[in-house]
């Protein structure tokens, strides 16, 4: 086997600052799938881009990065363009960002073939259609005339893969190509990438933050942390017997479905939240009606924990927003501690009463805190409003509560932007808890966090649940996360509840086809005998 991509002692940084990449060495051979895993800011993308000769402006670098003997650090523009056109392709995380929205899929695919490879338009079209069929897209001919907005994210990512494969590259670089996709869609894309890589004998460098995904696709893995390779080797060896502490932490933090070892107690208290026939429809300007939530019904006992799992568009977030009264139901009943919810926006006084019953923590820790308000004051404001405390007393209460969620007094006057994602999510939790709610809704509250941070925040949620006697409604796309936190589970698909019951039962013996598909779509390591089925 010959060396395809060879990175040696590659260091990159900005003058006067610590390096972003520090002596990274990495190698991909012909026909080999290699994973590059690490958390955000570890330098995964920088490393991969260097292989195409893409460097951030104003950066300084040293070492060697060579693709098929071409050193991209020193190569001229012309050589780099030839490399990108003919030998190495890249697939990015967000397919929609990489395609011109006003031109058709056909224009996008045939442009380079006509301009640089001297094909006629009809030859190029023929080749593009063939390529689209090969990546598993049906009705490829019609697809050529469609615009990007007419395609789903998964279909568009297949188009991007087709575009990347058009020139039969020897090296395929994938930068989190499935992170923006649903699990069931991801499973299809991963299978496609694996097939293409194997049948073409391409070398592939696959960047991901998801260890499970890396294990399901790649034979070898490099673990990157703060710009340094901490460990590398065969995927199985690295993940099953990690040598470095960091790798071990990462493996342990990666959520897996834990059936049986459920920490969540099964609650049998009186019902806190009762929902029946709950429906939410939206009227579109053109007269179309979208049913975001269709006839949902369930009951959540006091002290219980209910997970709501589904993919994008399943209606899970609509359900969460209805529970906290950010949306008004079209029909159906929602009763919280015996109080029925009116089918109209709440009055200010009603909202204040409701605030002591239910609180929510949102997904994005970067947007869910007021950027201008120091975090201590943000929490103190809630104490002043709900616990009728004076300025000084509220500050003391806020300090205590922040300490309980792991934010020390030295951060009391910090603004949100000075905090990390995990710290912000802790502050968001403290803000919600300051109202002393009985029910806490977590809307993908850990999805934007790195795995190690996610694990810590989940630990905190469990701890706080016990301390405050909270009832939990956890909305997420991640089955592994709910299997850990929730004793009861609801599976949603296209606005409907397709299955509900005890988490352990659903995970072990799913009764619905969609649930089975969802569970089967979770990436499985290559060394697992079980084939990936979807």
């Amino acid at each position, binding site marked *: 086997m010959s060396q395809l991509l060879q990175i040696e002692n590659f260091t990159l940084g900005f003058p006067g600052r610590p390096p972003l990449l520090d002596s990274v060495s990495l190698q991909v051979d012909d026909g080999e799938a290699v994973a590059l895993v690490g958390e*955000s800011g570890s330098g*995964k*993308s920088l490393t991969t881009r260097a292989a195409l000769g893409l460097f951030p402006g104003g950066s300084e670098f040293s070492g060697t990065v060579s693709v098929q003997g071409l050193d991209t650090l020193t190569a001229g523009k012309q050589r780099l363009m030839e490399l990108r056109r003919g030998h190495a392709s890249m697939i990015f*995380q967000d397919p929609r960002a990489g395609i011109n929205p006003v031109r058709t899929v056909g224009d996008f695919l045939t442009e380079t073939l006509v301009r640089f490879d001297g094909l006629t338009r009809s030859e190029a079209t023929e080749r593009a259609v063939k390529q689209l069929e090969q990546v598993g897209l049906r009705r490829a001919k019609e697809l050529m005339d469609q615009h990007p907005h007419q395609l789903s994210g998964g279909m568009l990512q297949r188009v991007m893969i087709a575009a990347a494969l058009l020139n039969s590259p020897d090296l395929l670089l994938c930068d*989190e190509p499935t*992170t923006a996709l649903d699990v069931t869609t991801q499973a299809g894309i991963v299978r496609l990438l694996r097939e293409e890589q194997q049948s073409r004998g391409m070398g592939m460098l696959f960047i991901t*933050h998801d260890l499970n995904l890396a294990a399901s696709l790649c034979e070898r893995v490099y673990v990157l942390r703060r710009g340094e390779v901490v460990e590398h080797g065969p995927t199985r060896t690295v993940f099953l017997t990690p040598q470095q502490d960091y790798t071990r932490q990462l493996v342990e933090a990666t959520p897996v479905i834990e059936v049986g070892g459920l920490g969540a107690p099964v609650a049998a208290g009186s019902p806190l939240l009762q929902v029946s026939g709950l429906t939410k429809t939206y009227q579109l300007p053109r007269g179309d009606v979208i049913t975001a939530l269709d006839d949902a019904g369930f009951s959540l006992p006091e002290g219980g924990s209910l997970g709501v799992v589904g993919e994008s568009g399943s209606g899970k977030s609509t359900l969460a927003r209805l529970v*906290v*009264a*950010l949306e008004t139901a079209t029909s159906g009943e929602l009763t919280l501690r015996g109080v029925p919810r009116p089918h109209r926006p709440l009055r*200010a006084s009603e*909202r*204040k*009463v*409701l*605030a*002591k019953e*239910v*609180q*929510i923590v*949102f*997904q*994005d820790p*970067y*947007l*869910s*805190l*007021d*950027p*201008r*308000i120091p975090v201590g004051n943000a929490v103190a*404001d*809630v104490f002043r*409003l*709900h616990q009728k405390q004076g300025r000084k007393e509220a500050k003391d209460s806020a300090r205590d509560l922040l300490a309980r969620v792991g934010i020390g007094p030295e951060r009391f006057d910090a*603004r949100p*932007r000075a905090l990390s994602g995990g710290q912000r999510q802790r502050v*968001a939790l403290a*803000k*919600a808890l300051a*109202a002393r709610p009985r029910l806490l809704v977590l809307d993908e509250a850990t*999805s*934007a*966090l*790195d795995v190690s941070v996610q694990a810590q925040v989940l630990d905190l949620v469990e701890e706080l649940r016990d301390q405050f006697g909270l009832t939990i409604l956890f909305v997420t796309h991640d089955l592994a996360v709910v299997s850990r936190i929730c004793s009861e589970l609801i599976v949603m698909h296209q606005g409907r509840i397709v299955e509900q019951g005890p988490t352990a039962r659903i995970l072990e013996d799913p009764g619905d086809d969609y649930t089975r598909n969802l569970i089967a779509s979770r990436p499985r390591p290559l060394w697992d005998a079980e084939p990936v089925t979807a």
Partner: protein
Amino acid sequence: MTLAIQLPQTGLRRYGSLLSPMAWGALAVAAAVVLLSLFAPVLAPYDPDYVDLNNVLAGPSGQHLLGTDALGRDLLSRLMHGGRTSLLGPTIVVIGSTVLGLLLGLVAGWSEGWLGKVLGRVFDLLFAFPALLMAMLAIALFGKGLFAPILAMTIAYVPYVARLAQSLVVAERSRPYVQAYRVLGFRTPWVVLGRVLPNLIPTVGAQSTLNFGYVLADLAALSFIGLGVQPPTSDWGAMIEESRGALLGGYILPAFWPALVVVMVVVAVNVIGEELSDRIGGKLS
């Protein structure tokens, strides 16, 4: 997940240490003009209205640094005193239109129902009227002087601020942090005035800075056509108008100085405004 999120910064902190040398220069020019005008009664070498018919249309000299006009009045003194009226007008207009525009924009942006739509149309309607035309209309109603143009200009510039504020509020309203306030049970006036409004001020402030320059030029133009400040009160626009006769006689300076000052201030204010909106816009995108 590797989501690269550029954090939008809100609040006055955005202004911190963000000026280029060009903007610093502009700021220095603006500050110098403001200070010279403000302290004109102390600093000006002559009484601006003192007529010296023995010394008309004199060129710059040790006695009269910038020369004299057709009535022998000291041009430097008139410029300094004129700044007081010429800068006062735009200041009142900018403060008035900013306060009114912010309030209307907040209401328009926050109300999802008919009120927001109606206000939006009203802003559109006001946009359609040129500010100068409204000012002339007001002058026809209330008479010449400073009051009518200032009132008209204030109304004319409200939609520039209100439209911007409205679009910012609509964006801000759907942000999770605002929704979190709602779920926490905070009252809407507290959230809107206490939390959302301060986050808009830097962006709106940049727009209002730009408005200052336009208003200054508009008011000078009104004075030039004789509808604004009336003689003998010194005003840059009025000074240019008074110098028309001298200009035809070949004496440029009496018209040149006030014109130069107007241009300098407008350019300086625009540079500062552009800089602020670029910086803030850049950080928002």
